[in-house]
């Protein structure tokens, strides 16, 4: 056998004398460039539709913005002057801060930004919205040269300018970036003494988060329980019958999600079909099957079932029947053959289906909105409420980011426990 040429470091050389590795890379580079060019449009699409919105959300969750402007850009003088003031001292900020507020508010009023500012601070301390809205015009009427001192002037315009908590809020939210949205998302707040839990009756997000995760887990378990036998049947039937059944499984996809959820409303409501049947059976008390957690679990299990069946089916179809036969010929009962031989080979499908259903469920919106009632809503309903009704994009983004992190953590844990390579989606 002929030996390849090597250089001083013992690297193998190609025919032209360059190291083999290098010349191989050169040969592959052109190939890679061409491949990249081919997928460029798709890549661009993914970046625009997927990466950018998520990046935007992550940013918004920490950006301290009022409307389209950063807060410190709207109140530059206040931001600068208030730095030296310590709210814990128990005294109102010095005169310079009040004067700076007058200067900044006059500009903001001219540019019609003072209401945005008010709304932004109102997220932190209720009441500041009206404080800014009502003060705008009258502050713009003040003369900077003659109308001082401005502490009295402002308090004269509105008593609330004398509220220490409001000034503490302004100080805490005068930077470009803020953690107040994240604090709010985990039911915390910052007052003049520091960071603390909100009052128990105002805590909602942690409860919602736990509820969302818990109900999603229950739904995932229910889809597994119902989907496993169906997938097995599908995999076991001859191709023609299996295809027909598969169409039935996919049939729900052909109808609108809204229609399916609404039909659950009709079925499950107090005067609905199921309750009528229940009463007909002789029971007196009607069941409350909807506008609660039970309703969400029922409707979402139904809606997400195909996402469990399909990965399971695709895994089960690759398991030849000879495994079960082999197990039985070796002396295993039907149950042992299933549990020791068949079931372990379907874990990849269970993992894939479980992950898919769980992640879909965690982010579900319409169904809990329609059938969830008061105690069956998910965190996504709250996120929607925050940015559509309140307009608090920052809090919505923080909640979204937390959900993203939770899902990623779960995904990581799953990868550690099961191995993501073992997941088969189809």
């Amino acid at each position, binding site marked *: 056998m002929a030996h390849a040429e090597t250089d001083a470091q013992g690297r193998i050389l190609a025919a032209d004398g360059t190291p083999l590795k290098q010349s191989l890379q050169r040969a592959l580079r052109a190939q890679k460039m061409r491949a990249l060019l081919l997928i460029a449009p798709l890549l661009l699409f993914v970046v625009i539709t997927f990466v950018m919105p998520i990046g935007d959300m992550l940013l918004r969750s920490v950006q301290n913005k009022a409307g389209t402007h950063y807060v410190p850009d709207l109140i530059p003088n206040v931001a600068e002057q208030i730095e030296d003031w310590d709210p814990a001292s128990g005294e109102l900020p010095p005169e310079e801060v009040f004067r700076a507020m007058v200067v900044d508010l006059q500009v903001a009023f001219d540019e019609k930004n003072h209401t945005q500012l008010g709304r932004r601070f109102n997220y932190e301390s209720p009441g500041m919205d009206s404080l800014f809205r009502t003060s705008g015009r009258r502050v713009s009427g003040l003369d900077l040269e003659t109308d001082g001192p401005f502490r009295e002037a402002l308090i004269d315009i509105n008593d609330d300018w004398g509220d220490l908590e409001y000034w503490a809020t302004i100080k805490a939210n005068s930077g470009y970036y803020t953690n107040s949205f994240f604090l709010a998302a985990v039911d915390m707040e910052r007052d003049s003494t520091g960071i603390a839990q909100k009052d128990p009756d105002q805590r909602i997000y942690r409860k919602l988060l736990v509820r969302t995760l818990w109900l999603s887990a229950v739904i995932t378990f229910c889809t597994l329980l119902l989907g496993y036998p169906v997938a097995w049947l599908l995999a076991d039937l001859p191709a023609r019958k299996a295809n027909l059944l598969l169409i039935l499984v996919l049939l729900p996809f052909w109808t609108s999600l809204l229609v399916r959820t609404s039909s659950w409303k009709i079925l499950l409501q107090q005067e609905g079909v199921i309750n009528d049947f229940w009463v007909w059976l002789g029971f007196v008390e009607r069941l409350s099957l909807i506008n609660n957690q039970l309703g969400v679990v029922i409707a979402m299990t139904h809606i997400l079932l195909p996402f469990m069946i399909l990965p399971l089916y695709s895994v089960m179809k690759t398991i030849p029947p000879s495994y079960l036969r082999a197990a039985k010929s070796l002396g*295993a009962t039907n149950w042992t*053959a299933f549990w020791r031989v068949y079931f372990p*080979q379907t874990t990849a499908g269970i993992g894939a289906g479980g992950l898919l259903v769980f992640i879909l469920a965690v982010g579900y919106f319409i169904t809990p909105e329609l059938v969830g009632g008061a105690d069956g809503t998910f965190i996504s309903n709250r996120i929607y409420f925050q940015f559509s009704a309140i307009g608090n994009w920052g809090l919505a983004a923080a909640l979204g980011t937390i959900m993203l992190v939770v899902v990623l953590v779960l995904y990581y844990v799953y990868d550690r426990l099961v191995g993501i390579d073992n997941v088969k989606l189809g």
Partner: protein
Amino acid sequence: MADGASSDAFVEFERVQKSYDGETLVVKDLNLSMPKGEFLTMLGPSGSGKTTCLMMLAGFETATHGDIRLDGTSINNIPPHKRGIGMVFQNYALFPHMTVAENLAFPLEVRGLGKSEREEKVQRALDMVQMGAFGGRRPAQLSGGQQQRIALARALVFEPELVLMDEPLGALDKQLREHMQFEITRLAHELGITTVYVTHDQTEALTMSDRVAVFDDGRIQQLAPPDVLYERPENSFVAQFIGENNTLEGVIKEIRGETCIVQLDDGEIIDANPVNVTEPGERTKVSIRPERVEYNMDRLQEGAHTLKAEVLEFVYMGDIFRTRLRVAGNEDFVIKTRNAPDQVRLKPGQQIEIGWLPQDCRALDA
């Protein structure tokens, strides 16, 4: 034909029929009786019902009609896991999520054997197939031949008295296959196991078996030891299916005890050995093995019949010569001769005379 029931039979099929769809019989009237320790091969073309028979024996299919007995007791109503039959599947069916040792321990575990006893038996079974060092591997980390050995070891580890194998060597290359054929027969005889072996490959069937059952059309066409099957096929299907075979068609002129006279379709008259022809006037296929045809007239025995032939093709195959001839209108008449130092090499176009012994020339059904 098939044996009837006998008292020392270990495995018995009695008048077994099987239909999957209620319209066609896949197995028609199967009668088979195997003594203990026999190595029996089911050989036949694709779709002839071999696997179906095996599956009925193993309990994965139920016979539509008839009785299957194991050691004298009918097993029609015994579920598969209670039959205690070892089985080797064509794709091996080694459990992919278990190691080799766990695979082998599985049948022992479900039988409730203790851990130490299990380990000892597993190791012994692994050593038996020369895979002692592979217990910790996954099946996917083994080559095809190694997987095959493990499948064999797993089927044997719980010491079944009967082992079924469905084309276990189908996926292996020729050399490995020949080696495994030897291993399997050695093990089967050493352990005294009764074996039913299914294959497509007639060489495999002939070299491994005590007896071969040739299947066609859901029936056993002939059940006999390999040499009998090859030298004395009982009908033209078996003659053509087993080994290479030359066929000449004609009509029976006369039957005289051990010999009959056949008029071939081109008018030639030859002597033949009547096997399953009964009366003159019947059409027949006369069958002669290629290696029983002689063209060196000096070597031909007294009383041998001769025919004219034209050489069409000569193929040098190393140990033998394979020559294709035109004989009595048949252009696929093949003869094989040993590559001996004095052997004549024929040339295409050459006109020769060929002959054979009447008992080697068997008149079979048309």
